């Protein structure tokens, strides 16, 4: 049984109801049986569990373990400041957890925005009595009474229609009103003319309908369900961070265990060796990585906002840079959605400029039109505004509308009856095939002639030519009804016949500035751009051609409807890039199939029904100008200008941000070795403590952070949009590990130890002499280690500005933030080294300028080695 295929009475019988409605008691019984008619909040993970999850991901666990080790060490060796380090690590975990948690509300907000689209009260008939009840109390079998301006509360089958027209935009994305009737219909349920859906709006007329689905069982509920539950999974960056932290954990663990074994073999005693192992592991934990990463993404989102892409989900900053496919709308995104009349064709082609056909076409364009011109300002649908503007440019037309058969998406035409030049005329506008179907005559050389097969064929070809140019095509017709015309019981059928065909107009929706260049950039960057539009295939193809797509045969929405996922996958694999006559419900399938194939997908959307696709995509991009609240809430990015070129700029920015994250991860790894090596020396050779815990903290959470953040805003390197999208796992590889831990790390460690021993020996220390942590010489030596690491960080940050381009070619001043970061880093170091307060907090002591100068050659060596490596990399193309 298909409810739309039944007659109204059969539908009532199937729902065990009647035209008089349900008895009150039965309505209540059904309400208890099927639940209230409301969009329920999807019961996801409870809020507290989601908050807890921020404390239990791998990096957080790693930091917890490090903090626990700190407290353990403090217990066994009190007074070394390990407890402070433990507390600082916990503070980092908490701050990050709170920051990330605050980001996670979009699902609820999107569903909340959906709930607002349903009405609060609704008129029903129960037991023959009309009454108003809260929308949540509507039950299956209830008769709802619909009138102009009402929102439909649930999915219902019409049993009576008085010219009912509904706007299904929240469900289908189509803004054109659709006529609804009570007669049975075949075909697809979603397109059935006797069904009204929850959340849609009655724009004209009225009618009675019997409810067959309520709450989450409605089509609207389906959208809410998908919006609330589809999950794009971890972002590429989150996956990368998992990998980075696990690699670091394994390296720290292995190094710790290795030295634990070494310590035991050297006869250091179990507890001493155990604490030594803990120290090594802690020294290897990059406490600053998480806050630096979060701040870098926040700064990236600021930069994107300046480019008119508002970032709602922080990880989207980088995810944009990793996308392999962009699924975009056409109208308003690739094009300006500001129509302009470009071509006019009439059968009177020899006299097109002045012929009657053309004159009447322009009159019809102005009168069969709902756009308004007041004080020179036009408002209304862009197509109608373009026609009105063009018509008024040619002549001032005075008229009064007497009657109208409004446009609807099924008939694809509208007709108005107007007083014009002392008589009464019917004027029609619509899709060529629907207008030509009701025309019997046309005007050639100012004379009316039969609209025969030859002229019809010429008109059809003219329309196709315009579509091939990417124009939107409309036809016009008229019929003189005579001055004595009376409205009476006139119907659409009686008016829309024997019309005189005027001609065809082609309207252009120009491409937005920069779109072909942006599409070209995507092509060079290996990103596939897929157009998903509700427009006709011909128009879509020609716009795609103008925009520079590598055009393939368009796939129609009706084909997608019939395809299995495997078939759709094949079409996408064959390079399909144009999807025409699509509705938002098809978009979700395209996105799902692409994601299933491992693509990283960005998708644009503006309608309510786009929300699930926006949530499902790796990056959902909502239109800020024309988008609905639901779409904006469901998206990760909101475009402030709705422009495709802005997406591509944001992708470019995202790629740069990923490169920059890679740079500062390398930079952070590079100082873990000089932090760990002195500690190994301390434990194995019983030298004075080379670096205090507070100094480690000052480096990891202080001096390191600002230059790392400055690396986060490094300008995109040239050619960033000429390379293919990055592969998974690109953040950290053996080259990054070698560069960070070994190459730069060991040079730094050698420099740092040199400074340490230089101060110790200079102060009269001899090998084997133990010094307490508070000994002035020991404090000076530890300060030298700290300062050495800071100075090597300066060289490292310069070296890390690019993995292949020489820092001198980039220009030392091209990233002023790096310079500012270095200056602040050195000022902070100077404060710790020379200020009594800094000395007290960090256990440091002032040291001479000779130590600063001693470190310079090591910094130069590090930079030189890096420059040599970059030179080789450029030569070999590695």
């Amino acid at each position, binding site marked *: 049984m298909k409810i739309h295929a039944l007659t109204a009475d059969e539908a009532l019988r199937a729902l*065990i109801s009647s035209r008089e409605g349900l008895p009150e008691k039965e309505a209540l019984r059904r309400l208890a049986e099927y639940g209230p008619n409301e969009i329920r909040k999807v019961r996801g993970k409870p809020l507290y569990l989601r908050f807890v999850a921020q404390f239990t991901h791998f990096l957080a666990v790693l930091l917890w373990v490090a903090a626990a080790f700190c407290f353990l060490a403090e217990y066994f060796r009190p007074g070394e400041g390990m407890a402070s380090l433990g507390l600082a690590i916990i503070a980092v975990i908490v701050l990050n957890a709170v920051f990330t948690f605050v980001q996670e509300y979009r699902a609820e907000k999107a569903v909340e925005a959906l709930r607002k689209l349903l009405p609060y009260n609704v008129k029903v008939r129960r037991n023959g009595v009309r009454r108003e009840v809260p929308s949540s109390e509507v039950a299956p079998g209830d008769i709802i009474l619909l009138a102009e301006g009402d929102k439909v509360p649930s999915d219902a089958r019409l049993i009576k229609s008085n010219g009912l027209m509904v706007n299904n935009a929240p469900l289908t994305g189509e803004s054109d009103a659709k006529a609804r009737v009570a007669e049975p219909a075949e075909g697809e349920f979603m397109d059935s003319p006797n069904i009204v859906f929850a959340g849609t709006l009655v724009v004209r007329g009225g009618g009675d309908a019997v409810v067959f*689905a309520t709450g989450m*069982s409605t089509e609207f509920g389906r959208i809410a*369900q998908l919006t609330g*539950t*589809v999950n794009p999974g*971890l972002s590429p960056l989150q*996956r990368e961070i*998992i990998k980075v932290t696990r690699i670091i954990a394994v390296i720290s663990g292995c190094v710790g265990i290795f030295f634990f074994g070494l310590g035991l073999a050297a006869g250091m005693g179990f507890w001493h060796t155990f604490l030594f192992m803990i120290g090594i592991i802690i020294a290897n934990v990059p406490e600053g990585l998480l806050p630096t990463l979060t701040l870098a993404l926040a700064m990236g989102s600021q930069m994107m906002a300046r480019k008119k892409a508002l970032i709602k989900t922080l990880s989207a900053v980088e995810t944009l840079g990793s996308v392999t496919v962009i699924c975009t709308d056409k109208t308003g995104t690739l094009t300006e959605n500001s129509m302009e009349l470009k071509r006019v064709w009439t059968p009177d082609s020899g006299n097109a400029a002045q012929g009657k056909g053309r004159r009447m076409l322009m009159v019809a364009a102005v009168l069969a039109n709902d756009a308004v011109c007041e004080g020179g300002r036009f408002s209304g649908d862009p197509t109608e505004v373009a026609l009105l503007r063009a018509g008024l440019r040619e002549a001032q037309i005075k008229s009064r509308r007497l009657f109208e058969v409004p446009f609807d998406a099924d008939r694809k035409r509208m007709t108005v009856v107007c007083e014009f030049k002392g008589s009464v005329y019917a004027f029609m506008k619509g899709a060529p095939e629907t207008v030509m179907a009701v025309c019997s005559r046309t005007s050639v050389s100012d004379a009316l002639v039969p609209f025969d097969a030859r002229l019809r064929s010429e008109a059809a070809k003219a329309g196709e030519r315009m579509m091939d140019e990417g124009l939107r095509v409309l036809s016009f017709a008229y019929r003189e009804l005579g001055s004595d015309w009376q409205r009476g019981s006139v119907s659409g059928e009686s008016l829309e016949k024997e019309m005189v065909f005027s001609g065809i107009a082609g309207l252009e929706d120009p491409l937005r500035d920069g779109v072909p260049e942006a599409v070209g950039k995507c092509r060079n960057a290996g990103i596939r751009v897929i157009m998903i539009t509700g427009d006709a295939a011909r128009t879509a193809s020609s716009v795609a051609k103008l925009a520079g797509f590598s055009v393939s045969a368009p796939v129609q929405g009706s084909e997608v409807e019939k395809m299995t996922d495997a078939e759709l996958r094949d079409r996408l694999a064959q390079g399909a890039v144009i999807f025409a006559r699509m509705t938002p419900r098809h978009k979700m399938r395209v996105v799902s199939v692409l994601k299933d194939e*491992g693509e990283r997908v960005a998708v644009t959307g503006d309608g309510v029904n786009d929300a699930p696709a926006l949530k499902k995509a790796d990056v959902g991009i909502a239109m800020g100008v024309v988008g609905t609240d639901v779409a904006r809430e469901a998206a990760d990015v909101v475009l402030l200008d709705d422009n495709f070129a802005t997406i591509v700029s944001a992708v470019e920015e995202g790629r740069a941000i990923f490169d920059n994250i890679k740079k500062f991860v390398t930079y952070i790894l590079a100082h873990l070795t000089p932090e760990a090596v002195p500690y190994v020396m301390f434990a194995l050779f019983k030298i004075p403590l080379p670096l205090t815990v507070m100094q480690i903290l000052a480096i990891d959470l202080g001096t390191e952070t600002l230059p790392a953040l400055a690396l986060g805003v490094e300008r995109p390197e040239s050619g960033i949009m000429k390379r293919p999208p990055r592969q998974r796992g690109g953040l950290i590889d053996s080259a990054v590990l070698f560069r960070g831990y070994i190459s730069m790390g060991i040079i730094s460690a050698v420099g740092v130890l040199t400074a340490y021993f230089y101060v110790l020996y200079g102060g009269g220390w001899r090998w084997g002499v133990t010094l307490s942590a508070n000994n002035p010489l020991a404090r000076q030596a530890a300060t030298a280690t700290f300062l050495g690491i800071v100075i090597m960080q300066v060289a490292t940050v310069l070296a890390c500005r690019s993995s292949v381009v020489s820092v001198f070619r980039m220009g030392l001043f091209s990233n002023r933030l790096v310079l500012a970061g270095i200056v602040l880093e050195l000022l902070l170091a100077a404060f710790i080294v020379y200020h009594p307060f800094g000395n007290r907090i960090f256990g440091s002591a002032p040291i001479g300028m000779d130590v600063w100068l001693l470190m310079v050659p090591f910094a130069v060596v590090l930079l030189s080695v890096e420059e040599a490596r970059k030179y080789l990399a450029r030569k070999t193309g590695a």
Partner: protein
Amino acid sequence: MYNNVLAAINEFTNSEVAAAFAVTFSRVCGARLILYYADEGKGKDAASHAEAALERLFAHAVYEGVEVERIVEKGSPFDKIPRQVSANSIDIMFMATRHEDASRRFFTRTLPRELMLSLPCSVVLARIVKFGMPAPHHILAPIRGFLSDVDKRAFFLAALTRGFGSKLTLFHMQEPLISFFHGEISLAPAQREERLPQDVRTYIRAVEAQGVTPFVRTAHGAGRWSVVTESALHRNDLIIMGASQRGLLREIVSGNPVEQTLRDTICNMFVFRP
């Protein structure tokens, strides 16, 4: 395989919808159908609703050419239904559950749970959330490994699919591969299909042997929303799941996916116990 079908009716419309499915199933199997109502003494109103439903269903069954019988007796369905099952050699029984039942954890102390655990025949528990559209257009049948009674399950699925001329999708959810360094690794559909367990393949062949060609879909995930989201995404209008009884501890800790789906479903759903 199924010669005698029993459909339990009560005063609620969802039992009538569930019984309408039983009519179609009986027609496809050529089985005898018993429409049964146990009057618990809830009042005249309840009885008249149930009897009106019996009337409509009887007429529908006759129209469909099904050999049908009506039985109305007084007493508790907890006692009466098992006796009817035994007395009439019932092979399969259809019954409905309500919004209220589904809100109880583990369906404790509900008729559907008691009968599902105790009856010696196959049991179909119907959760009707969409009243007006009982003829399913596209059925979703989630499947897992370690299936028992493969032939019965395949027969039931195929009979309903054929009976309504529906499309059938067999949906297998897989845990993603986990690598220590890479975390979860998502596989492409072709790779997932290669990893289908042997008994799932056997089940697919058994369904095909019943003359139905199902679509097979695989996906990663095992969360509570996986099946409901899948049905919403592909516009399925009937979910058929196999009953599962987990260990108490496991149910308390991670829940029962069938129970969760039954509670959250947005389309009609059957739980089938062979």
